[in-house]
């Protein structure tokens, strides 16, 4: 081949992505700057629909400047960094002096805190879209989010019949208007149809406990909850579900009921991990393992499973290979919010964007099928709108998931933050230390128990397996201890792992001895 032609080849290949790059849209007159962890489908659909809405309602061309520094954790680090920088520049304070500017626990008369809350510190971004209620509440408490005023502007949207303030015990919007739920998510189970059909006898999965079925040994996938907030939340829901089941009145539990429910919850989590063939490093990879059929079931967040189901359906010509199961009496529905950032450079446009997202027109994008009137143009987003007035027959006729109604299903479970909320970081740590780190020993013990005829046939082994890593009564103190120093946390993790390994080896020995 001509030598210079060969030299030109890499240049030609290099030009390919540039040639295929979509033609840039006409430059809008104004732009709203939105930071988000949402994926491309949501950005594309909401960007285009908002532009059309603004053209009609505001009378001019408006675009969305999406900022995607990464996942929610990346965005939070970015905001901390940039707000700190902006505040120090505005206030003239040094790093040490301004240290408490974003500390919600700082005294009310703390100069840095007071100055920050009165300031127009800015990160050059108008809106924070997505990231989960827990994280947006944290950002609001730091003072990064401010009231967008929609409760005053549209009080009818915040009526219980449209957007209740709480659903299944979870907050749907901030009473001070600093963030509003934009859509609803639930934690549950992704199941692979062919794998379940191949079980002997074939089985359905309807609850968290079903994931502990010995028939699923080696067929479950779990993500590490210390690396996936969604899975950590799902683990918390499992514990809540068992605690609620153990209490005569979950609003007023007795200490004994709490201990019983806590132990039962850990037993469910332990057996799920014992059934796991693989621990993934992220929730989406776990769902993908189910979609491929490498796992029969796995914990997940609803829209991950629905997105994978959508894709397998498209690829296979209409036959989705997996489905999302809402665990019976085992999960709550939480809001994925949107909020206005302090010092928004395009404040009015930012509020307009939030207004659009909460309007019926914006809400239709979440679950309408692509191409339906008022629906998304290309992508089926398959998330659940937060507005209750979208769950009527006339809307559900256009929906991708018409059988799902969070307002109906929420009645089956109530999340009680006071029971496990303060222990949230400990749940992820304990899952890792006592279940994931010693998973080889746990799997061996579980296999020995199964081979011996099941937990009922070897009660001593089952009891040894089920020992609770940390009692509910001690959990808060243990968490405080773990938070005292990074080294202490590591020592605790190692200690839990060593104790659990010894416990699982004992359970395996007892099972082999038939006890």
């Amino acid at each position, binding site marked *: 081949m001509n*030598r*210079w032609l*060969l*030299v030109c*080849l*890499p240049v*030609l*290949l*290099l030009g*390919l*992505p*540039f040639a*295929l*790059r979509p033609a840039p849209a006409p430059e809008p007159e104004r732009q709203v700057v939105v930071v988000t962890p949402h*994926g*491309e489908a949501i950005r594309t659909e909401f960007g285009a629909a908002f532009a059309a809405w603004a053209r009609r309602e505001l009378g001019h061309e408006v675009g969305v400047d999406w900022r*995607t*520094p*990464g996942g929610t954790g*990346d965005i939070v*680090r*970015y905001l901390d*960094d940039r707000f700190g920088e902006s505040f120090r520049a505005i206030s003239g304070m040094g790093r040490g002096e301004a240290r408490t500017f974003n500390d919600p626990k700082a005294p009310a008369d703390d100069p840095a805190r007071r100055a920050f809350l009165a300031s127009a510190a800015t990160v050059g971004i108008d809106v924070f879209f997505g990231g989960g209620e827990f994280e947006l509440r944290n950002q609001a408490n730091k003072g990064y989010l401010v009231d967008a005023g929609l409760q005053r502007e549209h009080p009818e949207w915040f009526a219980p019949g449209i957007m209740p303030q709480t659903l299944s015990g979870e907050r749907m919007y901030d009473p001070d208007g600093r963030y509003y739920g934009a859509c609803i998510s639930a934690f549950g189970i992704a199941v692979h149809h*062919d794998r379940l059909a*191949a079980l002997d006898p074939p089985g359905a999965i309807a609850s968290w406990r079903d994931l502990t079925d010995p028939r699923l040994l*080696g067929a479950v996938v779990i993500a*590490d909850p210390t*690396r996936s907030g969604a899975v950590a939340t799902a683990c918390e829901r499992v514990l809540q579900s068992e605690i609620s089941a153990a209490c005569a009145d979950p609003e007023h539990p007795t200490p004994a009921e709490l201990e019983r429910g806590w132990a039962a919850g850990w037993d469910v989590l332990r057996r799920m991990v014992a059934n796991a*063939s*693989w*621990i*993934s*490093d*992220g929730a*989406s*990879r776990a*769902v*993908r393992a189910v979609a*491929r*059929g*490498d796992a029969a079931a796995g914990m997940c967040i609803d829209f*991950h499973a629905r*997105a*994978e189901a*959508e*894709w397998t359906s498209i*690829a*296979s*010509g209409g036959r989705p*290979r997996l489905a999302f199961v809402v665990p019976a009496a085992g999960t709550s529905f939480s809001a994925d919010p949107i909020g206005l950032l302090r010092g928004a450079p395009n404040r009015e446009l930012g509020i307009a964007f939030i207004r659009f997202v909460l309007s019926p027109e914006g809400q239709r994008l979440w679950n309408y099928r692509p191409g339906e009137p008022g629906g998304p143009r290309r992508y089926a987003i398959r998330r659940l709108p937060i507005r209750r007035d979208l769950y009527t027959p006339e809307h559900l006729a256009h929906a991708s998931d018409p059988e799902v109604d969070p307002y109906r299903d929420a009645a089956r479970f109530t999340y009680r933050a006071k029971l496990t909320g303060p222990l949230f970081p400990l749940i992820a740590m304990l899952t890792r230390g006592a279940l994931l*780190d010693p998973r080889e020993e746990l799997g061996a013990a579980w296999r020995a128990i199964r081979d011996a005829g099941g937990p009922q046939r070897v009660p001593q082994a089952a009891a040894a397996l089920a020992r609770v890593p940390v009692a509910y009564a001690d959990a808060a103190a243990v968490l405080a201890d773990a938070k005292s*120093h*990074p*080294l202490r946390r*590591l*020592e605790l*993790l*190692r200690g839990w*792992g060593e104790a659990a*390994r010894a416990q699982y080896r004992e359970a395996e020995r007892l099972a082999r001895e038939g006890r």
Partner: protein
Amino acid sequence: MLRWSAYAVVAAILAVFLLLPVGTAVAAGFTDPASGGFTLGFVREAVLNPVYRAGLGNALLIAACTTLLAGAIAMPAAWLMARHRFAGKGLAEVLLLAPLVLPPFVGALGFEAVLGRHGALNALLIGLGIGDWAHPHDWLAGNRFAAICIIEALGLYPFLYLTTAASIARLDPALLEAARIGGAGPLTVLRRVWIPLLRPGLFAGGVVVFVWAFTELGTPLMLGYDRHIAVQVFAGLAEAEKNRLPFAQVVVMLVIAAGAYVAAKALFARHERALASKGAQGGGLVQLDGRGTALAWLLVGGICGLAAAPHAAVAVLAVAQDWYRGVLPSGLTTLHLSDALAHPQVVPSVLQSLKYSGLATALALVLGTYVAWASTRWRPPGWRALDLVAMLPLAIPGIILAFGYRAMPALPGFGWLDPVRDPTILLAVAYGIRRLPYVVRAASAGYEQTPVALEEAAAICGASGWLRLRRIVLPLLAASLAAGAILAFSFSMLEVADSLILAERRETWPITKVMFGLTDILGNGPAIACAFATWAMLFLAAAFAAASALGRGVGSNFKAG
């Protein structure tokens, strides 16, 4: 005066951007983040916790198995290529080096499609009547360790192949002849002549493969194998500010890598001098007949077929409509390719990678050419140390350097390097320093093969230093430098550890990080990643072909020096 100033600048750059980051990473492993004081606590935890010990043990085992496997692939190929002549040998040489543009972590993407429960291998077996879809064999479950070793060995064997082939080519056939005349049998010749004389080549290639496999992050990460120290270090990155465990694990890795290097050198490289007396290079090649040529191509084809199999699966995934329970996809589509190349992150990442890799190549070229010149032409005091430091990145795991670079901005006076603001300088330096050895070796080879008499003659005729550089040195070195530069550029484009650790904000991500990011997108994310990876492999293959067209082959970089 000018040459001494340049010497000082190059030494300072290597000290600041090579020795300092390693020192910084090591120091961070011994620092209490709360008090800033010295602590052994994190290193103790890295050693005491069975999970981290298992991570270390697995990484070492993977490195050892990968090196052995790579050796088993490379040695017959090296013997074939260095001792024989057969039809199509030129093409075979290029094909054997193809894995250099097929990064192992990309191959891992294809493995799941082939080896999954509902993958191509089971479809083939079930089609042949072996097994059924109710109970398909799970090839990956429990075999991720083996999968990593195989993928890495198939990706890394070219390093061992090149150095071993170079050693075999330099073997003096008279020694073998003398041994045979002396009555030694084939086994004795192998044990007493071949192996001792090949030791330096085996050591040079083996160390590169071992250290690379020991610290390789992309492949175990892509295959979801978390009991691996590089993956554990990467997982700890998010909280590295508060939790210094990842740095402590880096300290452990560095000690092990250095220990392995010293042990291997003691074991294999004792007879380095044997190579210094270059034997009858290229002499005594055996011409293969038709049957021999067929066997030679069977060997080359087998190796290349195996090496390319995971990447071929990636290319198939890039155009597959649906690949479930089939030996091949049920249909083909260009959707993923167009989605990938038109993806909003792709063009920016290509631009970023070109920027980082371009700057890195320029840096490596300038530094590498200078170091090569200083150690072959000038030889000032300390030139051996300079040459050794320039080769050090081959022995220091990439993830250790990356962690060192990440810790540098916290040092007084280095805040301007903060990768959160802009990682360009750090990434360019990281890529450039990592690839410096390739350019140093290429340039050294060029200098060694360029008669110094030409420069001396020009000097006698009154040519200035600049004129000699422009009219004699650079034209004669151009081919070597181009080969070294393209190697440095290509490997920079595929760099994983530095990219994942130093490029934090999405708009600064290079192509490797975008590939990892695309695999996380739900739906057809992995297919888009495969399509992008296919483009990247084609681009790099074209870059290698261009490098070959420019003159010297890539292999020559390893053969010299």
